[in-house]
């Protein structure tokens, strides 16, 4: 070992450098600081610094220098491992440990750093059979048994450091060794040493849990060991055999479920372990920090699964013991605030981890007490969560715990066929009731009541960004809705009667206000409190009803939930269908005033209750009481009706094995009920749109209800028979109040609905008349306007601009309404406008928002229609898009954007242009156009003079976009994603055009690809990789060497090679990278061999060399010589997967 020659000089140099680094910023210059940093960096890189470091540790008094010395030792040991004598390593480790032991007053960060060095040495040595590092456990256990708290703390620090080092997580230090090394270390460690640590920890906990009185110091030691136990139980166990995902071992350690290997059976599958943690928790539960750890340990134990259980019986008895412990823990105590989340985690882990068969195999008494306990706990957390809301607490622990428990309920009852029939009904009733109670005002409920029963009611400002309750609490509502279905027998009638009662009260209240208004001219001193309480009650009742009665699945036909259907069927014999229809059809009357109202179908009755609410609202608007109404309630009503209509209206009997008579009689196809309700909904929509134009969200929900009514042909057929529908169409076309007051997105959706309705079944005269009402006025107004002599003068006037904007919005709405069977007529209609729109681009070039809207029309048309268009029509669209791009480009020439720090929405036009190009390209992937021979013939004859192709348009577009896309702009996520999507598409679809790009553009394209591959998100990296294969294939096709593209692909070969072989990458990317690599290898075989050679020659270890060489041989064995052949490529990809699993870990270094 190097003698400490010149050590004093080194020390004084380091100490003065440390002084510079520690000095306040004002005292030293940047250069001084950098110089000082440099001194430490080069010190840490110095060869065999062990002697000097020891000397420093023993003599220096500067903590920072001590810290650096420890770091230097750690780095040097790893660096020079193979050169070092084994016993000198051993003595170094002993030295460090002794050093720490002898200096109990070391700064914490210095001590931890030295222990880290110890842990790294132990880890590095663990695979080296020649050196024995096991002794450390012996030493540590001696330290623990010393009984001295300081020493015990130190022992805990050593174990913690070891654990972090061996976990191969992001906590592990960077020591420049392969992933395979880290993986093997972890595997060896978890089979033996980790268990030893666990056993040691358990002993300490055992010891402490027996003691009566713990002083502060001891309790702090206790806490550290508890945290250590938690760390062990949260260990992310590496499975015994090398999986192919093994390469990604450096995972983030969050929410790991406990899945120990079989060898842990004895240590963990022991009831005493669990009991100990329950005991520990009981002891320390008042200390909120420690309680979190002990509960987390229990939660980890509750998540235990995998090979540790020899069979299901073992699992059952483990779970039974767990539940017993849990129940006796919960039942004996009043839960502390800090325990709520932990306890709910235990329960949630139990329910998610253990299979249903294990749950059902539990002794039935135990199972039912567990369910009882869960029920009580859920209700109690729910109440506490409500209190938290009233008090407006920052830290909503009960809300979090309540969410967890409700989620667990959902998991439980979703597979309730495994459990005894009806076993969840009573619990469901209780949880449901308590939810409703918490959300209703006094006296029925407890909403806004503080713990001592005082009502709090302050009106807060709510901004537009705040989510609506239906989204904010969607998870809770989904669970409560599900529980409501389980206990439909109780819950549906409950909701109905509560809602009917509130509606009656609301009606009365509004009437009183109206009378007051009529009686006195003085402004009504309305007490909003009573009304707001009613609105809030109704709000929650409608939300729960909506979630109970129907689901809102995306993209599939929602079905009536089977529980609801069964419930309706079960009672259908007692139901009087006529009275039911009467209740449904008379929303203006009080339900209970209708004779025989007790013999009605409850599901229909609940809908009727919402319709009654809606009717009270509508009547109030007619009585000019709109000021008194709640727009929130208005939203709730149309939201509910939309959700309901999607599922129940024109119920399709074919979709159900059994159907309820009342439901099919009231809402089935060709029923009066269905017709009536469509008419009613339409009237509601029209009323809302005229009175609520000032409430954008309500108007939006309303117009979405309208879309729902017409987007299905069956419903639309009924809608267009209503006179109201035609009135709406005419009114909208005339662009007069009140509809033109609606905000533009709503007008757009309204247009979409009107167009969709036009494709309902109508005789041809009617249809013609319909379009004459809906579309022609739009065209007429537009043409009249732009053909005016003085259009150039008036075009900037607000009123004119507004008319133009309204037209453009309407065009977007029309495009959005495109479906396969209407695309023909809509396309011709829109095409007439598109060329005029280009003219507008010139007129409004200085009005960016108008320009954006014009481009948006093109984007929408391309997005919705191109996939259906035949050749001639596509070409027309390409042509007009090309003209648009030309105008855009001309207007942009020399235009400077305001400043680089500008906001994303300043680049909206660029984003839209890229979207347009991508949409145009998408035809190459998705094409539904008619390829029927007959049409084809026609198309070809007209399309003979083919002038513009998609490639022309897109490449022209790229010429515009590429120069504008700076690296700064790529920082905006939306621009970045759209840009890469676009260039990948282009490379894939028109690889032959890439070499023809002007040099500058070509360069920037290649640079973009490289940038995207190496320094963007994995999604973008994948896109870029996908772009490489077609480019390489293109090169192979032309067989020209030394073209810029050929040279570029050579560069990419190296990049992809490094990426696959040397870097840690996402396993999902292996396929994309593999395909790219293969085609690149085909193209540049010699370069590939060079890369392999140089990689192999850099390996010093003969064994590794051989393994790598073999692996590379196998990799290309199936494809020698490599040719661009699908079969060979597939074979290569398969070998690559094995290659990565086999040696990937060898080369990827941390």
């Amino acid at each position: 070992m190097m003698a400490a020659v010149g050590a004093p000089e080194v020390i004084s140099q380091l100490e003065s450098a440390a002084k510079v680094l520690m000095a306040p910023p004002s005292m030293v210059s940047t250069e001084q600081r950098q110089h000082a940093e440099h001194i430490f960096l080069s010190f840490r890189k110095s060869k065999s610094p062990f002697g000097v470091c020891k000397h420093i540790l023993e003599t220096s008094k500067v903590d920072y220098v001590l810290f650096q010395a420890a770091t230097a030792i750690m780095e040097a040991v790893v660096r020079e491992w193979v050169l070092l004598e084994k016993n000198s390593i051993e003595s170094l480790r002993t030295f460090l440990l002794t050093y720490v032991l002898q200096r109990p007053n070391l700064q914490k960060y210095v001590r931890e750093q030295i222990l880290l060095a110890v842990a790294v040495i132990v880890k590095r040595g663990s695979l080296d059979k020649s050196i024995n590092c096991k002794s450390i456990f012996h030493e540590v256990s001696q330290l623990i048994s010393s009984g001295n708290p300081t020493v015990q703390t130190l022992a805990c620090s050593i174990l913690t450091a070891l654990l972090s080092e061996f976990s191969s997580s992001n906590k592990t230090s960077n020591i420049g060794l392969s992933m395979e090394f880290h993986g093997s270390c972890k595997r060896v460690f978890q089979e033996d040493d980790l268990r030893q640590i666990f056993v040691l920890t358990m002993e300490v906990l055992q010891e402490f849990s027996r003691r009566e009185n713990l002083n502060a110091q001891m309790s702090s030691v206790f806490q550290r060991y508890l945290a250590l136990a938690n760390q062990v139980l949260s260990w992310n166990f590496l499975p015994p055999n090398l999986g192919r995902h093994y390469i990604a071992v450096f995972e983030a350690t969050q929410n790991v479920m406990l899945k120990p290997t079989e060898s842990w059976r004895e240590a963990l599958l022991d009831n005493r372990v669990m009991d100990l943690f329950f005991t520990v928790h009981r002891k320390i539960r008042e200390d909120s920090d420690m309680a979190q750890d002990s509960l987390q340990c229990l939660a980890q134990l509750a998540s235990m699964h995998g090979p540790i259980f020899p069979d299901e019986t073992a699992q059952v008895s483990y779970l039974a013991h767990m539940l017993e412990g849990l129940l006796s823990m919960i039942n004996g105590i009043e839960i502390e605030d800090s325990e709520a989340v932990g306890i709910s985690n235990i329960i949630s882990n139990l329910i998610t981890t253990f299979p249903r068969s294990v749950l059902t195999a539990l002794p039935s008494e135990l199972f039912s007490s567990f369910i009882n306990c869960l029920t009580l706990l859920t209700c109690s957390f729910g109440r506490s969560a409500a209190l938290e809301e009233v008090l407006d607490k920052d830290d909503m622990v009960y809300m979090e715990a309540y969410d967890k428990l409700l989620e667990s309920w959902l998991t439980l009852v979703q597979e309730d066929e495994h459990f005894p029939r009806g076993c969840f009904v009573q619990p469901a009733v209780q949880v449901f009731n308590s939810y409703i109670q918490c959300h209703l005002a006094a006296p029925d409920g407890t909403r806004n009541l503080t713990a001592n029963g005082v009502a709090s009611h302050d009106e807060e400002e709510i901004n537009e960004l705040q989510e609506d309750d239906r989204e904010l609490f969607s998870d809770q509502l989904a669970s409560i809705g599900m529980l409501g279905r389980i206990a439909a027998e109780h819950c549906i009638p409950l909701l109905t009667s509560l809602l009917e009662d509130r509606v009656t009260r609301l009606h009365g209240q509004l009437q009183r206000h109206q009378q007051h208004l009529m009686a006195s001219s003085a402004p009504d001193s309305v007490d909003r409190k009573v009304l707001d309480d009613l609105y809030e009650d109704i709000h929650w009742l409608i939300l729960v009803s909506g979630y109970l009665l129907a689901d809102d699945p995306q993209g599939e036909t929602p079905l009536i939930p089977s529980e609801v259907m069964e419930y309706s069927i079960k009672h259908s014999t007692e139901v009087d269908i006529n009275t039911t229809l009467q209740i449904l059809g008379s929303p203006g009357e009080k339900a209970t005033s209708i004779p025989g109202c007790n013999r009605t179908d409850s599901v229909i009755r609940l809908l009727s209750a919402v319709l009654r609410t809606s009717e009270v609202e509508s009547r109030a608007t007619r009585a000019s009481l709109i000021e008194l109404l709640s727009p929130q309630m208005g939203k709730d009503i149309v939201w509910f009706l939309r959700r309901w209509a999607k599922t129940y209206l024109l119920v399709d009997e074919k979709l159900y094995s059994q159907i309820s008579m009342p439901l099919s009689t009231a809402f089935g196809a060709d029923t009066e009920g269905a017709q009536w309700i469509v008419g009613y909904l339409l009237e509601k929509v029209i009323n809302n749109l005229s009175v609520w134009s000032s409430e954008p969200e309500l108007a939006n929900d309303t117009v979405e209800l309208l879309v729902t009514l017409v987007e299905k042909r069956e419903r639309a057929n009924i809608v267009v028979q209503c006179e109201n529908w035609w009135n709406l169409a005419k009114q909208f076309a005339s662009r007069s109040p009140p509809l033109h007051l609606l905000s533009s997105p709503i007008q757009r959706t309204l247009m979409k609905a009107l167009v969709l309705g036009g494709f309902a079944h109508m005789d041809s005269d009617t249809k013609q008349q319909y379009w004459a009402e809906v579309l022609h006025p739009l065209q007429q107004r537009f043409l009249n306007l732009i053909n005016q002599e003085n259009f150039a003068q008036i075009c900037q006037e607000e009123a004119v601009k507004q008319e133009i904007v309204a037209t453009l919005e309407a065009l977007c709405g029309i495009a959005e309404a495109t479906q396969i069977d209407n695309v023909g007529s809509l396309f011709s209609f829109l095409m007439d406008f598109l060329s005029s729109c280009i003219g507008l681009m010139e007129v409004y070039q200085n009005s960016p928002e108008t320009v954006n809207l014009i481009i948006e029309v093109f984007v929408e048309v391309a997005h919705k229609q191109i996939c259906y268009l035949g050749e001639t029509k596509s070409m027309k669209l390409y042509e007009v898009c090309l003209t648009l791009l030309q105008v855009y480009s001309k207007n942009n020439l020399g235009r400077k954007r305001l400043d680089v720090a500008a906001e994303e929405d300043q680049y909206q036009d660029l984003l839209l242009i890229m979207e347009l190009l991508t949409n145009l390209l998408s035809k190459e992937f998705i094409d539904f156009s008619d390829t029927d021979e007959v049409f084809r013939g026609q198309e070809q004859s007209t399309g003979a003079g083919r002038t513009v192709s998609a490639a022309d348009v897109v490449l022209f577009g790229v010429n515009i976009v590429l120069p504008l896309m700076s690296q700064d702009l790529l920082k905006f996520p939306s621009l970045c994603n759209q840009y890469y999507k676009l260039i990948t598409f282009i490379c894939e679809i028109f690889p032959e055009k890439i070499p023809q790009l002007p040099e500058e553009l070509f360069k920037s394209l290649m640079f973009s690809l490289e940038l995207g591959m190496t320094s963007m998100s994995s999604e973008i990296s994948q896109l870029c990789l996908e772009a490489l294969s077609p480019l390489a294939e293109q090169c192979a096709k032309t067989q020209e060497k030394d073209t810029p593209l050929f040279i570029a692909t050579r560069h990419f070969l190296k990049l992809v090679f490094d990426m696959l072989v040397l870097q840690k990458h996402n396993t999902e990317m292996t396929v994309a990278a593999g395909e790219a690599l293969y085609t690149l290898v085909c193209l540049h075989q010699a370069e590939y061999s060079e890369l392999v050679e140089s990689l192999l020659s850099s390996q010093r270890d003969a064994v590794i060399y051989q393994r790598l060489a073999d692996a590379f041989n196998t990799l290309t064995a199936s494809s020698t010589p490599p040719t661009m052949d699908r079969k060979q490529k597939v074979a290569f990809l398969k070998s690559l997967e094995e290659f990565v699993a086999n040696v990937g870990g060898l080369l990827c270094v941390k």
Partner: protein
Amino acid sequence: MADADLDFTTGDAGASATYPMQCSALRKNGFVVLKGRPCKIVEMSTSKTGKHGHAKVHMVGIDIFTGKKYEDICPSTHNMDVPNIKRMDYQLIGIQDGYLSLLQDSGEVREDLKMPEGDLGKEIESKFDAGEEILVSVFYSVYLKLEPLTLQIAILLIVLFILGSTNFYFVLFPPLQITVLSAMNEESAVAIKAMAK
């Protein structure tokens, strides 16, 4: 001055100085009268008081004459005044004593507009001296009942177009924010004629 379009005291024929619009129908980048001043809306958001309250619209506007910021919050059902904003294009035919001589389509010449100060003015002057053709667009509001003397301040923005040149400018004319400009108006007219067919 015989130009009816420039009669600020009465507003031009047929168009009133302002017209009402429901608050919820206003748009960002549009115009509105805030606290008695014609403003361009630069920010718009809605809020409500309490869950069951009615929507209120919060607007931030920039006075098109002075550049001052105005804010207002009002019920979304409220009708707001929207100023009539107009735009006129002129050809620059001369510069005299710091005033521009502008030729209108009608053939009349307007000489009451002061040359913008600062770099922009210098630039106009040098381009004009170099014989380049310069088109000036003037935006103005008929909103304010102004004394004829203060007419000049009603000019919002002077926009420069230099025909036959690829130089385009961001023109900052105090009180307004920077506006991006480009290209020629002649072509717009052509485009519109093409559309009419």
